[in-house]
């Protein structure tokens, strides 16, 4: 397919600002070999992006997988390795949070069990689809579309929401959002049970279903999915604010651990050394982010996070419409791949 000159030029202009690859491959200071990714990278670069994303997740209380996986993809880490390794990083980054919510009793363990039950099946399905897409050679396209859709919608919603809050702030106090009663169709479902800590008497079906869907998305895209799970629990199930974050962290921890295991067994693309560098960076960064977050104007920073998410979404969009420099790719088939 012919490439016009103007397209090539614009591509350089647009893509280079995001070209993390140039940082990565410019004379590593302390190269470390990532055995599964089959790449030599600077260990400080990995610790650095881990710390930066840990810091952001500490400020905003988000998991960070949805930022980390794209960063790894843009730096040239093969897609299966990026997705599978971030699952291990999410386990590490949610451990300390989950423990502290558990100690404070701010966790609905019973609901967590039903969420995880659904999540494990979702994760298994996700990993299976992942292998299928990989064999078809369409994994990269799928990840780009998936992230574009996810980050595009989340980024837009977050941007509108925080812009509204910011504008309202000057004139009046933020309106206390009052959630109406239960959603009728949720109430009508069978198999109702009592979730004592959430003070809910609802069917287990929507709980399992939410866990299932988040499990699929998490295994496919390499994200914990906390930023989708928390709103789902709040708006669909009406889980009260005091237990929602703890319960969500319990789900992330357990389902991501299972996903990591399944990726290790089935796609064999978990790079423990890559994951470890990211974990160390992000665990440290998250602590500083959490304490910095208390002194920073969170609502105003949230708009910056929204812009960052939108920028990543645009980067994915460019990746799937702009003709690549080299339209041919070489892949070595690993064990059990066909």
């Amino acid at each position: 397919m012919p490439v016009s000159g103007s397209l090539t030029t614009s591509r350089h202009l647009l893509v280079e600002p995001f070209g993390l690859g140039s940082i990565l491959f410019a004379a590593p200071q302390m190269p470390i070999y990532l055995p599964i990714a089959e790449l030599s990278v600077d260990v400080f670069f990995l610790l650095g992006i881990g710390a930066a994303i840990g810091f952001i997740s500490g400020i905003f209380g988000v998991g960070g997988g949805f930022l980390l996986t794209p960063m790894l993809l843009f730096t040239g880490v093969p897609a299966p390795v990026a997705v599978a390794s971030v699952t291990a990083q999410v386990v590490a980054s949610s451990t300390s949070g989950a423990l502290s919510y558990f100690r404070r009793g701010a966790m609905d363990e019973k609901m967590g069990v039903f969420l995880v039950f659904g999540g494990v099946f979702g994760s298994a399905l996700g990993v299976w689809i992942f292998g299928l897409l990989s064999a078809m050679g369409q994994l990269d396209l799928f990840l780009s579309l998936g992230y574009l859709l996810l980050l595009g919608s989340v980024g837009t919603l977050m941007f509108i929401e925080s812009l509204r809050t910011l504008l309202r702030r000057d004139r009046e106090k933020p309106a206390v959002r009052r959630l109406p009663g239960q959603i009728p169709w949720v109430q009508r479902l069978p198999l109702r049970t009592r979730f004592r800590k959430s003070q809910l008497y609802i069917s287990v079906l929507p709980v399992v279903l939410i866990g299932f869907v988040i499990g699929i998305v998490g295994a496919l895209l390499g994200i914990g999915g906390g930023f989708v799970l928390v709103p789902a629990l709040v708006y669909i199930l009406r889980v009260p604010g005091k237990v929602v974050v703890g319960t969500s962290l319990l789900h992330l921890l357990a389902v991501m651990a299972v996903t990591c295991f399944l990726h290790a067994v089935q796609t064999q693309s978990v790079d423990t050394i890559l994951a470890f560098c990211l974990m160390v960076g992000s665990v440290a960064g998250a602590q500083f982010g959490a304490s910095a977050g208390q002194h920073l104007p969170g609502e105003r920073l949230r708009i910056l996070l929204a812009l960052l998410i939108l920028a990543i979404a645009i980067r994915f969009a460019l990746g799937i419409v702009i003709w690549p420099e080299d339209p041919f790719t070489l892949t070595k088939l690993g064990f059990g791949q066909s």
Partner: protein
Amino acid sequence: MRRLLAIVAIIVLSFAPAAAQDEVNVVFVNSDPVVAVHSNFRGQTVTLFGSIEPGQGAPEGPYSVVVLVQGPSSDWVVREKGRQGGLVLNKAAARYAQAPSYYAVLSSSPLSQIAPPEVVDRQRLSFAGLAALTRQGDDLASLDPEFVRLMRSAGNFIEAERGVVMHSPTTFSARVPIDSNAVNGLYLARALIIADGKVIGETTTRFTVRTQDFERYVANLATSNPPLYGLATILLALGTGWLGGMLFKR
């Protein structure tokens, strides 16, 4: 080294009769039977030494030497992107089964000057021939040049026109570059002695590449025992997360 060569030559001569078509004997030894590669180094060079011993009625020189080094095989896929509905996606894919992950053709002078095409074909000295040989299915031959190009740029296919140095008309050495991410396993090196466009002597030697560091141990565990590897990774993650929480606790 010369004495070592002489000893090896005697051993080889006394135990291994030369193949019938060989008109010259070749002794071919390598500096390191086991090459240990450490990942924090850029790579390593294996030096192979050879000596040509013309027998009775052997063609007069000058002799040219081609050294072919072949590493463990893997399966590869080359994919070509195409545009569909405005999106760039992978379209055609050609699979290359059991193609070597390392294939180096080193020669004492440019191959085209010393070996006629039929020798190049028969001795599998061309990457294009290797691609055609390993490709599954007859269509998509158009991807062969791309396979060769990508393998070359990945450092898997190496061609060095002056990779073999003639120290005298009958002794030579070849320096074989082994990259730090070379595949572990047995590497086979074949030396061809060519005079007047004909192969007049041939012999092989082998060496083992083994990376002995932690990173490669991790990679081996990931494929040899995936459940254990997965569990170890999860425990590492839990431990790191827990320790991080403890360390930074206020």
